[in-house]
C-alpha cells in the first residue's frame, strides 16, 4: 500500500497546474465557452489546445505508434483531473479510441487514434435508442450487409456530441434474426454520411444554460436518424456480431477515471470553499454545527469516492481485471453526488433554487443546476441498479434470478 502519488507524478501535477494557471487566459476560456462541449471553438482556443498537445497531454496512456505518449494511466488521470478541475475535457473518455485500440485493425488504429488525439476526429456514442437505454441488448437499429457496404436504418437517441462529432461509434444489429447481445456490431460511421439526420434534444439545463462544472450540465443532446445510410464494410470494428464485447472494452472507461470522479465530488469541495468565504451568511452557516456535521459527512463520502477511484486505478496499473470494483465506484460515487447535491440544497435554502442567470444566484447557480442534473449520473453508462446487480453477482457470487415463484 502506498497512499500517495510518487515524486514524478506530483511533479507532473504541478506542471499541469502551472501550465493551466499561466496559459488558460480569460480570452481562451471565453473562446472555449462560446464553443460546444469543449470541442468546437475558435482559433484562440485551438492554439491553446495545440500547446496542450505539444506537451504530450493528450492520448497520454495510448501507444506511441498511434500518436499517443505511451505513459501510465495514472499520468493520464492526473492530467485529466487537473484540466477537469479547470472545466476542460482533455481526451480519453468517450472518444471511441480505447475500443479501437482494443479491437480495431491496424488500419483503423492508424486512421482514427492519431486523429482522436489531435482532436480532428470526435466520436459521438451511438448506443441508446428510444426503446432501449439501460438494456442495450434491445437494440433495433439495423445494418444490412450489401456487397462491400452496410446499409443502416434506424434511430438513436441521447447522442450527446452528435452535433460536434466527426464520427459515430454506432452499435447496430447486423443479424436481424438475433436477439439480445448476439448479432450486434459496432460501425465507425462518418457523421456526414448521406441519410443521417441530427435533431437536437434540449435538456433541462438549457434555459438558462448550466455553468461550467455542473455535474451533467449538458444543455443539448441529440436524436439521430439513419435513413438507408450506406457506409463501406471497412467501417466495421472487430468481428461482425461481436459488437457487445467490442463496446464493453470502450464503455468501461466511462465508468471510472477522473471525469466520473470529479463529476461526483466537485460539489463537496465547492460547498466547503463557499462556506469559507468571508461574508456574513457564509460565516453564520459555517458556524452552525449542524451544517458542519453534514459537510463533514459529505467530505468523508467524497474521500470514499476518491479511494474507490484510486482502487480502480490501482487495479488498472497492476494490469488486473475488475471484479466488482468499477461497479462499486459507479454506485457509490453518483449516489454520493446526489446526496451531496440535496444536502447542500438544505444548507443553502432558497438560494439553492436560483439558476445561472438569476440575480442573487450562489456560485453562478452551479448548486441549483447540479440539482437538476446530478440524478443523471446514476443512470448513464450503466444505471446504479444494473451496477448493484453486478456487484452482487460478481463480487459476492449471488445467483441470477430464475423464474420467480409467487412472492406473496
Amino acid at each position, binding site marked *: 500500500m502506498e497512499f500517495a502519488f510518487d515524486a514524478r507524478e506530483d511533479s507532473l501535477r504541478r506542471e499541469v497546474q502551472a501550465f493551466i494557471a499561466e496559459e488558460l487566459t480569460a480570452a481562451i476560456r471565453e473562446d472555449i465557452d462560446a464553443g460546444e462541449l469543449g470541442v468546437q471553438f475558435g482559433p484562440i482556443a485551438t492554439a491553446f489546445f495545440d500547446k496542450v498537445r505539444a506537451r504530450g497531454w493528450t492520448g497520454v496512456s495510448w501507444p506511441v505508434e498511434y500518436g499517443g505518449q505511451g505513459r501510465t494511466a495514472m499520468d493520464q488521470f492526473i492530467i485529466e483531473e487537473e484540466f477537469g478541475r479547470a472545466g476542460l475535457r482533455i481526451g480519453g473518455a468517450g472518444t471511441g479510441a480505447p475500443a479501437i485500440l482494443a479491437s480495431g485493425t491496424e488500419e483503423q488504429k492508424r486512421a482514427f487514434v492519431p486523429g482522436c488525439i489531435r482532436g480532428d476526429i470526435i466520436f459521438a456514442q451511438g448506443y441508446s435508442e428510444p426503446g432501449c437505454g439501460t438494456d442495450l441488448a434491445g437494440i433495433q437499429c439495423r445494418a444490412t450487409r450489401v456487397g462491400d457496404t452496410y446499409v443502416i436504418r434506424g434511430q438513436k*437517441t441521447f447522442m450527446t456530441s452528435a452535433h460536434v462529432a466527426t464520427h459515430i461509434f454506432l452499435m447496430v444489429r447486423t443479424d436481424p434474426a438475433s436477439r439480445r447481445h448476439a448479432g450486434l456490431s459496432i460501425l465507425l460511421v462518418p457523421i456526414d454520411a448521406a441519410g443521417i439526420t441530427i435533431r437536437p434534444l434540449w435538456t433541462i439545463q438549457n434555459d438558462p444554460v448550466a455553468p461550467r462544472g455542473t455535474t451533467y450540465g449538458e444543455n443539448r443532446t441529440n436524436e439521430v436518424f439513419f435513413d438507408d445510410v450506406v457506409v463501406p464494410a471497412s467501417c466495421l470494428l472487430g468481428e461482425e456480431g461481436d459488437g457487445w464485447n467490442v463496446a464493453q472494452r470502450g464503455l468501461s472507461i466511462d465508468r471510472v477515471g477522473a471525469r466520473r470522479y470529479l463529476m461526483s465530488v466537485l460539489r463537496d469541495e465547492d460547498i466547503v470553499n463557499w462556506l469559507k468565504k468571508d461574508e*456574513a451568511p457564509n460565516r453564520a452557516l459555517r458556524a*452552525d454545527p*449542524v451544517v458542519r456535521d453534514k459537510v463533514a459527512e459529505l467530505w468523508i463520502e467524497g474521500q470514499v469516492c476518491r479511494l474507490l477511484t484510486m482502487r480502480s486505478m490501482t487495479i488498472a496499473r497492476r494490469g488486473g481485471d475488475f471484479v466488482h470494483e468499477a461497479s462499486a465506484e459507479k454506485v457509490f460515487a453518483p449516489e454520493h453526488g446526489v446526496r451531496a447535491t440535496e444536502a447542500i440544497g438544505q444548507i*443553502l*435554502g432558497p438560494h439553492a433554487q436560483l439558476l445561472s442567470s438569476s440575480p442573487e444566484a450562489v456560485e453562478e447557480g452551479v448548486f441549483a443546476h447540479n*440539482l437538476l442534473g446530478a*440524478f443523471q449520473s446514476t443512470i448513464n453508462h450503466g444505471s446504479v441498479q444494473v451496477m448493484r446487480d453486478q456487484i452482487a453477482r460478481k463480487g459476492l457470487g449471488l445467483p441470477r434470478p430464475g423464474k420467480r415463484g409467487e412472492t406473496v
Partner: protein
Amino acid sequence: MDVLPDEDEAAIQATAEDFLAAECTPALVRAAERDAARWSPALFARIAELGWLRLCLPEEDGGDGLPLTHLAVLFDVLGRHLAPVPMHGTMVGAITLARCGTPAQRAILPAVGRGEARIALAIQEADGSWSADALALRGRREGDGIILDGAKSFVDGFRESTHAIAAFLLDGAPALALLESDAPGLSATDLVTTAKDSSASLVFDGVRVPASRIIAGAAPLRLLMDLAAAFLAAQMAGAARRATERAADYAKDRVAFGQPIGAFQAIQHMAADMLIGAEGAQLLAREAIWRLGEGLPATVEAAQAKAFANEKCLAACRSAQQIHGGIGFIEVHDQQLWYRRVAAWAHRCGTAREHRRTVAAALLDQQGPVRLDVPLVAE
C-alpha cells in the same frame, strides 16, 4: 381521530382532481413558464369561478366558512397538477388577515374570494433564513404610518399579485404590512428558479404604509409562516405522489431485460419508498393544517411537515426521474416539470435544518416528559 378526508373534503378533492386533470395540463404549465408573467390568469379565473378561493374564508368576509382541511386537499391537488396560479401566497395571506386583521384590513378578503386580489408573501431576506429572528427590514414611524427602507427576497408570485404582506421590525418586534404591489417606492427584480415560476427580490425605497395597514406582534407573523410551511408541504406531497404515480405508469410500459421495468424488485422497492415518502408528508401536512384550522398551536406540526417534505418529496421526484432514465433529462418530456418545481419548493419556506431546530427546541427546552401523541407547543 380520522386522518382521511371526510365526505365533503373528498368531494372537493374529486372535483378539483377532475377539473385540474382536464384543465391544468402539462401544456398549460409549460405555457405559463414561457409567459413573461409566469402564471396562468385564465386558470386562476376558472379556479375563482369554482369558488376555491373563498372556500375557507369566513362567511362574514364573503367566504364559505369551511374548515381549513378543505384547503389541505386543494393544495394537494394543485401540487399534483403543478397549477401555475398564486394560490399559496394568496391563501396564506388571506387566512392570516381573516384571523389577525382589523375589519378594515379584512376588507380585501371578498376580492380575494373572487380572485381579484392576489397576495404575495415577503418574509425572507437576502440571507435566505426562514426565521422571525432574521428580520432586518425595519419600519420607521412617520406621522400616521411607517416608512419601509430595505429589501426582501424570495417573494414568490409577486408579479401576479395585487398585494404583498411584508414582515418587518417595528420598534424591535415583528410586524406585518399589507401593501399594494404597485406601492410607490416598491420595486422588484425577477429571480430565475428551477421552478420557472415567478419569484422576486424587492427593494423598499421609502415605501409608506399607513398605520391601518399594519398588523403588529409576533403571533400574526408566526401564523403566516406556519400556514406557508404547511400549505407548501401539502402541495409538495401532492406533487410527489403524482410524480410517483407517473413513474409507476412509465415503469409498467417501459420494457428492459425482457419485462416491464416496473416488474423489477429494485424499481418496485424504490417506488414503494416514494409512495411512503409522499404519504408521510401528506399526513404531516394535513395534521398541521387541521390544527391551524382549529386554532390550535401548530408551529411544531408545520415544521415537521415541511422538514419531512423537503427531503422525502424531493427524493420521490428525483427517483421518478431515475425511473424515467434519459428522458427525465429532456425538456420536451413532461416528467421534469414535477422535479423542477419540487426542487424549488423544497427550498422555500424553510429548510429541513431550520424546521428541525424548531422541533428540537420544543422537544428539549421545555420541562416535563414528551409523548409522541401529545402535541408540543413551540416557545
